[in-house]
């Protein structure tokens, strides 16, 4: 079978063997959850409940503000203790709803009812349901799905790609979902295909998941609108632009969106969430997260949104050694946390723990112009050149070297023999460019 891929990229140790064999487990309800009101790209949701209110599972807590935003629902039944600031895993200090969990009556909100004919819905109806359910891209970028599903006027989709690459080391949540619930995902895929009005669907899985490939080859045998394509195991194979290039040989223009090359990419978890809302009416209140690294039992857990990391680690038997770093997401692109009193949100695909011995601190040396970062950069940029300019505050130069096209995958920092903080500097440069644009200079 031909393996599809893109030029550049790296192959870090996969470490998936730590958790890939453990099937999805449902974690018992915690005593308290903190549900962030900002779990998506764009504006935070506005709270529609107040302190002391009783909520059910699936009750609306926050309403989307503006076009790029998303609704937030309660993941548990219980009483609202407070609406206050907390440590968010991605956006720092922000607002969240603290709910004391009522473990006895874990019922869905009575307003949630499945639709009568899920197979006869129009694309617009599906998109409306996705919007109300607060579904966002669950691979980690958390872009509101309804915005992606409806192409802007004058544009259209040809292909829908189901992203089952999961190229980040350590993470196995999507892999387990592909193996255990192919029907649920496939029904979700059919809905997405209908909603975005694309003609063809592609299921893309990396070659390091033979079990999932076997199941899906069999599953897609009699489907003429869907096709399975196997990707070469490489990082960042699951990045949207790289995936489109690998499968369709189309390049997304600089600063543009995938819709310009008529492709829509959705994560496996997103497809499953879309299935749930259309067939059962359930809003997005739980997700599969891999808990791995320096923890006693590595698991793939089905978690309620808002469950605190400290509770999750306790359920997994505690830390292995003294914790040194807790990363939300994968080790390459994830965010390391300030504290373990942090809840998971819609985009938390994994929790990777490193202990004190595993956290490496290297001395940062000067660039020797070896060009390794240039050969691995999946966006064909010159990371060392951009980083040097950012270091010396030549922001305009960095911008002319297309710093804004960087996807922050971290491949350049990974290969650098001088341990330079390349991706960190580029990210800093991007932030400075945006700040400058905002000032209008």
């Amino acid at each position, binding site marked *: 079978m031909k393996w599809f891929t893109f030029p550049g990229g790296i192959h870090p140790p996969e470490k998936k063997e730590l958790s890939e064999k453990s099937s999805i487990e449902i974690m018992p309800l915690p005593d308290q959850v903190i549900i962030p009101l900002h779990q998506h790209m764009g504006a935070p949701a506005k709270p529609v409940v107040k302190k002391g209110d009783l909520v059910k599972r699936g009750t609306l807590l926050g309403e989307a503000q503006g076009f790029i935003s998303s609704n937030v629902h309660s993941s548990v039944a219980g009483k609202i203790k407070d609406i*206050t*600031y907390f*440590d*968010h*895993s*991605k*956006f*720092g*200090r922000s607002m969240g709803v603290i709910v004391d969990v009522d473990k006895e009556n874990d019922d869905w909100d009575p307003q949630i009812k499945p639709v009568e004919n899920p197979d006869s819905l129009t694309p617009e109806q599906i998109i409306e349901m996705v919007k109300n359910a607060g579904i966002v891209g669950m691979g980690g970028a958390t872009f509101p799905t309804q915005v992606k599903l409806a192409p802007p006027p004058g544009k259209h989709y040809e292909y829908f790609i189901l992203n089952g690459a999961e190229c980040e080391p350590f993470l196995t949540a999507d892999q387990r979902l592909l193996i255990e619930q192919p029907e649920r995902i496939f029904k979700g895929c059919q809905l997405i295909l209908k909603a975005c009005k694309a003609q063809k669907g592609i299921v893309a899985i990396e070659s390091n998941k033979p079990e999932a490939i076997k199941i899906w080859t069999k599953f897609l045998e009699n489907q003429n609108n869907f096709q399975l394509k196997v990707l070469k195991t490489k990082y960042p194979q699951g990045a949207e632009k790289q995936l489109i290039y690998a499968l369709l040989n189309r390049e997304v223009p600089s600063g543009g969106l995938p819709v310009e090359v008529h492709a829509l990419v959705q994560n496996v978890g997103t497809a499953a969430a879309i299935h749930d809302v259309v067939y059962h009416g359930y809003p997005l209140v739980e997700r599969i997260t891999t808990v791995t690294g320096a923890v006693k039992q590595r698991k793939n857990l089905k978690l309620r949104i808002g469950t605190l990391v400290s509770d999750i680690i306790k359920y997994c038997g505690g830390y292995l050694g003294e914790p040194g770093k807790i990363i939300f997401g994968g080790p390459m692109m994830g*965010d*390391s*946390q*300030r*504290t373990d009193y942090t809840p998971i949100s819609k985009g938390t695909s994994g929790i990777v723990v490193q202990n004190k011995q595993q956290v490496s*601190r290297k001395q940062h040396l000067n660039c020797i112009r070896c060009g390794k970062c240039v050969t691995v950069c999946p966006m064909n940029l010159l990371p060392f050149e951009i980083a040097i300019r950012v270091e010396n*505050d030549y922001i305009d130069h960095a911008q002319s070297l297309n710093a804004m096209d960087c996807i922050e995958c971290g491949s350049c920092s990974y290969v650098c023999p001088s341990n330079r*903080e390349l991706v*960190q*500097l580029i*990210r*800093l440069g991007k*932030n*400075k460019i945006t*700040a400058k644009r905002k*000032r209008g200079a």
Partner: protein
Amino acid sequence: MPLEIILSTSVVGAVGLCFGIILSIAAKKFKVETDPRVDKILEVLPNANCGACGAPGCEGFAKGVVEGKYPCHGCIPGGQDVAEKVSKILGVKAETSVKQIAVLMCGGTRQLSPDIADYDGVNTCRSAHLILGGSKACVYGCIGFGDCVEACPFDAIHIGKQGLPQIDGQKCTGCGNCVQACPKNILKLYPVDTPLILACSNPEKLKEVKAVCKVGCIACSLCVKKAPPQALKMENNLPRLQPDAPKDIKLYEEAVNSCPSKCLKLGVD
């Protein structure tokens, strides 16, 4: 004297003379007329090229002010002094402007608001701020890597022993470069006659603030009651001095002394 020396000296001298004559003719013939006022204004400007006026450097400002693009008091670092000189050159009446200086709205030193995590990355405030707001317990507070120090063209800011930037009121001209450089937005420009400064920017409430900083504003609003009526108002859990508040420092002494977390200060210095 050997012939070689005489010969080489005279040849070089003659060539130099020739070029000198050509250059002086060219200078007369291709002369570009400039407004003499531009040079005069350039002389009185601080020539720090800080960009606070909005023009690209002092020369840009001098040209712009002659063309009427910028007001006479447009040079912020120059202040009243330069504004008067510029207006004299242009023959217009000087407008009055109050000098502004930068003030740090945070009092959380390393001892009072310690780090709760370990930051290993690019040593700039903005880079640390991008990762969940940095490693300091209070995410609204000063990180102390000194982006403002780098941005200051007048050498008016230095990081003090306790990890917070110290602003030299004499050297600070109010150009605002540090205000733009600060990723936390806790450096602000205040007129020098501002009677009361709040050294905290944490918008959270008592319990959360106490957990992260010993000198954080806990939104008790005691100062609002002790200050002259209508002078202070609580906005976003922080007392804010109203624009029409009286400017006499003595009126605020009681409010400052009443503050339980000692985050109010009298005067900008």
